[in-house]
């Protein structure tokens, strides 16, 4: 009986392990390739970290550096050369500016909206909410062209504004927060009104602190989506390298004379991925709380 029970359980675990491997192997490859030398990558040898032999890198000398400068261990070279080849800190900074601005403005707009949709009674509330749901169904790519034309007419192409403005109204955020606010008891709002708070005070002083877990969940969705977004920055940032976000920056590493040099390329990808992974680890508990709480699992 017991043995059969274990067999019954084990195939589930087997399946889950395979699923986990499918997700994890690309990450393993990325980290491994960012540490190894070009020869080891191409011959698929050296395990995770490779032999780490000190050597001179030909692509480096081709870029005009002396042979002395270009002689080092592969892991060091990969990261050093990635930062030499592209202004990665600048890209990371751009990513930070864009994602944080987008998130803050989204919250600024979504909180009052969702409060009104969840807790205030007014004519047409249900209609407005159904419009919000309707907007959830519109794919970004469908409206990309008109958006681009609008921004171009406004002279905003190649600015931070073009990266931020289209995302400031998040219907997903409004929907998510509205669902959360529905669970906040009316009595809490009534109490705040009795204490003398106005509706805006209620939003920022009562609802916002109560909604922190839901906001964190939304933050992860929003930040991950816009940090990783390649499509939109590719459209509105046409030439100015100073405005490149991390995904656009990674693109710098493909094409050109050294397009097949994977080490520095993977090193840049690792650099771009790390902030998100660190943020996730720090907020992991809250994040899982937030997702289970909002019923989004």
């Amino acid at each position: 009986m017991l043995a059969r029970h274990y067999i019954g359980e084990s195939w589930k675990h087997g399946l889950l392990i395979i699923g986990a491997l499918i997700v994890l192997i690309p990450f393993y490859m990325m980290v491994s390739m960012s540490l190894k030398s070009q020869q080891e990558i191409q011959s698929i040898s050296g395990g995770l970290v490779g032999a780490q032999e000190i050597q001179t890198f030909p692509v480096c000398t081709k870029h005009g550096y002396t042979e002395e400068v270009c002689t080092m261990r592969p892991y060091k070279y990969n990261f050093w050369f990635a930062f030499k080849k592209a202004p990665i800190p600048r890209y990371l900074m751009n990513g930070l500016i864009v994602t944080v601005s987008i998130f803050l403005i989204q919250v600024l707009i979504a909180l009052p909206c969702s409060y009104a949709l969840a807790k205030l009674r007014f004519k047409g509330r249900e209609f407005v909410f159904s419009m919000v749901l309707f907007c959830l169904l519109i794919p970004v790519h469908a409206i990309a062209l008109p958006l681009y034309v609008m921004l171009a007419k406004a002279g905003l192409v190649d600015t931070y504004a073009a990266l931020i403005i289209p995302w400031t109204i998040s219907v997903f955020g409004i929907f998510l927060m509205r669902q959360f606010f529905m669970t906040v008891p009316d009595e809490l709002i009534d109490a705040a009104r009795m204490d003398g708070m106005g509706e805006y005070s209620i939003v920022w002083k009562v609802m916002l602190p109560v909604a922190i877990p839901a906001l964190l969940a939304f933050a992860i969705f929003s930040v991950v989506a816009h940090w990783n977004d390649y499509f939109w920055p590719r459209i509105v940032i046409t030439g100015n390298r100073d405005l490149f976000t991390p995904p656009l920056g990674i693109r710098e590493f493909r094409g050109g004379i050294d397009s097949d040099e994977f080490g520095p390329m993977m090193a840049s990808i690792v650099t771009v991925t790390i902030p998100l992974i660190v943020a996730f680890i720090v907020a992991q508990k809250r994040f899982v709380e937030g997702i289970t709480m909002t019923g989004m699992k």
Partner: protein
Amino acid sequence: MGTISLKNINKSFGSTEVLKQLSLDIQDGEFLTLVGPSGCGKSTLLKIIAGLEQQNSGDVIIDDKNVNSTRASKRDLAMVFQSYALYPHLTVRKNLETPLKLRDYSFVERLPLIGNFVPSRKEKKKSIDDLVFKTSETLKITELLDRKPGQLSGGQRQRAALGRAMVREPVAFLMDEPLSNLDAALRVHMRSELSELHNSLKTTFIYVTHDQAEALTMSTRMAVMIDGELLQLDTPSEVYNNPSSLRVAEFVGSPKINTFTAQISSDGSVEFMGIKLERKFNTNIQKALVAVRPEHLEITKDSNKPAFEATVSYRENLGSDIFYHVQVDQSDSKIIVRGSPQAGLISNGETVRISPSHAEAMLFETSGERIR
């Protein structure tokens, strides 16, 4: 001062009428209980007084001022909610400070950081601190001031919620079933504490409850509301002993009052279950209802007393009292009789003789109106 009067209040949600032409005068310093079954509109009425809900028609007058268009916060009332509604992210101290800060600080003084530099704030902060301390002493929650609501027990949260209402020293307290989330023992304890608090504050209390025991024990006057109408407004003992209608008689009192169909003969004498009431009534109806409370029915062995026979079907032993649910032999109606444990337990299935106490029998029309 804390007189509140309601004049012809109507309220409906969609097509359902919740309050129908309701008028009520609340005197200064009284403990008025609005009591009624769930859905009778008592909480809605409280919210209308508070200004959280707008009536469709009618006037709310507080201290001779019509407050129909006055915002909730400007009516100088404080409310205690069933779920306490404390701000979960703030400590008890901050919870108590909030209404004072919102009332006393100017906009600039409320600003974070900048507010600290406004000279007048320091003085106000001092008086707020004093008030919070005074209130917490009264309610014995001083040592809980730095905790958050999540770390408090139900009774402590209840006190904190009371504290938040008290600090402002409002003209009246509105309480919406504040005790119903507490466990039974604590509820009984808080009843006496609330009464004491009312005695020491001498402020008007308006207390909403569906629990008639709370209404009977605490209030100076109780207003019985059923289906959006005010049926009776009187002292608890008057409401209990002298209900104006059958609905009030049935709602107030636990266990429920017993009713019997009765015949009235032309000379005004009333007969039910083969028993003739001593009192005569001046009425010309023939059919009526006699209502007798369980404690006014007696299980008797004395064969001289007028009585009817019934069979015990169920027994509730509360220690101090025993309530017998009995099946009346001649009809299919079930009634409840109070017996004393001293008289010895009667087991299920036994036949007993039940004799009513004549003076306490009340007569109602079949429509529910009282015949006096």
